[in-house]
């Protein structure tokens, strides 16, 4: 892991300062790749994709975390893992298939629009679902939602069942229990799940390529395009920025919530 993961990731920073040649790069020190990134539309696209990723995180939390709470709180211990395995199933089907499958489903003539028209909810097909930022967010949520359920489920280990009983006895409302008790106790898991979804929404090029249409870009797609254009220093600069974002998020999360708490029950 040190030789083939940590070292290449660290070296992306070094390579990002190399000078570009026609087909490769040569050792040197230049900030050209960073200048190229920050003074072009790429930086703006990067910020936009961060915004879309943040929306995907919020939606995934809203949909996925209540499931983790329900499974931990309401189901017997023996059934909990089997129910969570239900979410492994979509997660283990190729992301390629899941994302491409959304194309016919979300299209103007797809089953979603047909169904909504059939029940009379809309008069004409919604075209905003595909080849738009909305399509990218839908793709991100459907691709990475199971991770919020998994990390939320692990995090809920920290919320003992008697805590719910105490809250009920003291007359705390559902919203109060959720906001003041569950969320703070499960914060490490929520944070880890959110970082995973955020970083992958930002870095997986497949979703904007397939569902985003011509204008959609994220960090992963910028890296891909730079590699295809043989601009390796630029690809490495964007990777380095991406890794810096990830490390910063994990560091802040660890300082605030102690992320090792998530894995403590199984270690």
């Amino acid at each position, binding site marked *: 892991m040190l030789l083939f993961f940590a070292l290449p990731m660290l070296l992306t920073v070094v390579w990002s300062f190399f000078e570009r040649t026609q087909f490769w790069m040569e050792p040197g020190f230049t900030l050209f790749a960073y200048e190229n990134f920050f003074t072009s539309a790429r930086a703006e696209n990067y910020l936009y994709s961060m915004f879309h990723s943040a929306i995907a995180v919020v939606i995934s939390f809203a949909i996925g975390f209540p499931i983790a709470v329900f499974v931990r709180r*309401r189901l017997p211990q023996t059934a909990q893992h089997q129910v969570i395995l239900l979410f492994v199933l979509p997660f283990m089907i190729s992301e390629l298939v899941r994302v491409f499958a959304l194309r016919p489903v979300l299209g103007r003539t797809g089953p979603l629009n047909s169904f909504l028209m059939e029940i009379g909810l809309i008069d004409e097909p919604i075209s905003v679902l595909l080849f738009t930022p909305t399509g990218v967010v839908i793709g991100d949520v459907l691709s990475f939602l199971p991770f919020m359920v998994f990390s939320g489920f692990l995090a809920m280990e920290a919320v003992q069942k008697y805590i719910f009983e105490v809250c009920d006895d003291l007359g705390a409302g559902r919203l109060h229990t959720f906001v003041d008790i569950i969320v703070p106790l499960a914060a490490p898991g929520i944070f880890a799940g959110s970082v995973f979804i955020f970083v992958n929404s930002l870095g997986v090029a497949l979703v904007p390529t397939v569902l985003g249409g011509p204008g959609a870009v994220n960090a992963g797609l910028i890296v891909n395009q730079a590699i295809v254009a043989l601009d390796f220093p630029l690809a490495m600069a964007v990777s380095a920025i991406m890794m810096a974002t990830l490390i910063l998020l994990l560091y802040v999360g660890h300082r605030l919530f102690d992320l090792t708490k998530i894995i403590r029950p199984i270690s």
Partner: protein
Amino acid sequence: MRDDFTSDLTHRLKWLYLLGVVAMLLSPVFYVIAISFNEHGFGARIYEFTFDWYRVVAGDTILLQSLEWTAYLALVTVAIAVPMGVLAAKFYRRSRRKVPFLVLMLTPLFVPADIMGSALLVYFKNLTQICEWLGDELGLTFLYGWFELGFMTAVIGMVIYTLPYVFIVILITMSRYREQQTEAARNCGATAWQAFWHVEFPQIRPGVLSACAFTTILTFNETVRTALLKGGFDTFSNVLVSQMLNIGMSGESYAMAGMMSMLSMAVIGGVLIYSLAAAERRERQARARAEPRMSA
């Protein structure tokens, strides 16, 4: 399936919501599978069931070759990643400084495929150059081409990607194992290997099997890392993605996507059934032990 006093209706609604979310995640995949069996393909008003698209896939030599390569890749990745995962989990349980090791093992989970793949691509290209330079300087020709893009670099990429999943799955299974059992076996004269193989391994076997299944599926499903690191061969996913992006979704693409999905569902379904059966067996054994014995 419920252990407190919520109303039946609320409980059922929550179950409905949970199953609805699973259905929402799976429905596009089922839709693709349904289309793959339609003779007229996507968008047709008529639905006529056929296996023809699957016959086309089965008769395509390029696809079969890519399937063969993917199977080799999965086999080698499992053979390397699973034992490494077992060793890593054992090391983690015994180590005192857990955080740095945990960070190293789990960070790849958070790194998107395109970022990791491109970093490894540039790394291997540099290593190839370094090996060539060393070969020239030292006159050691066997150093040439060690890290040229090909099967080995794809395996390294896949091992780095799958190892965190294997590590987590095995760690979960190992959390139920008590180290005192190994100590007891050693006190009875067993070697370290015998204690592991005859005492510990049977108890972590479900985790190891699940890890093998997950690694196989992840390898079959992976597109980006293999596309960047594979060199001269194609995996099944690589052929599928190039078809989808260059030609569009044809009946054959739907059949390929259907095959990949059904394979994943069969494997995960198998793991689910196996784990349910194992849990039931454990519970039965525990109940039998708890029952008072009849005196003779």
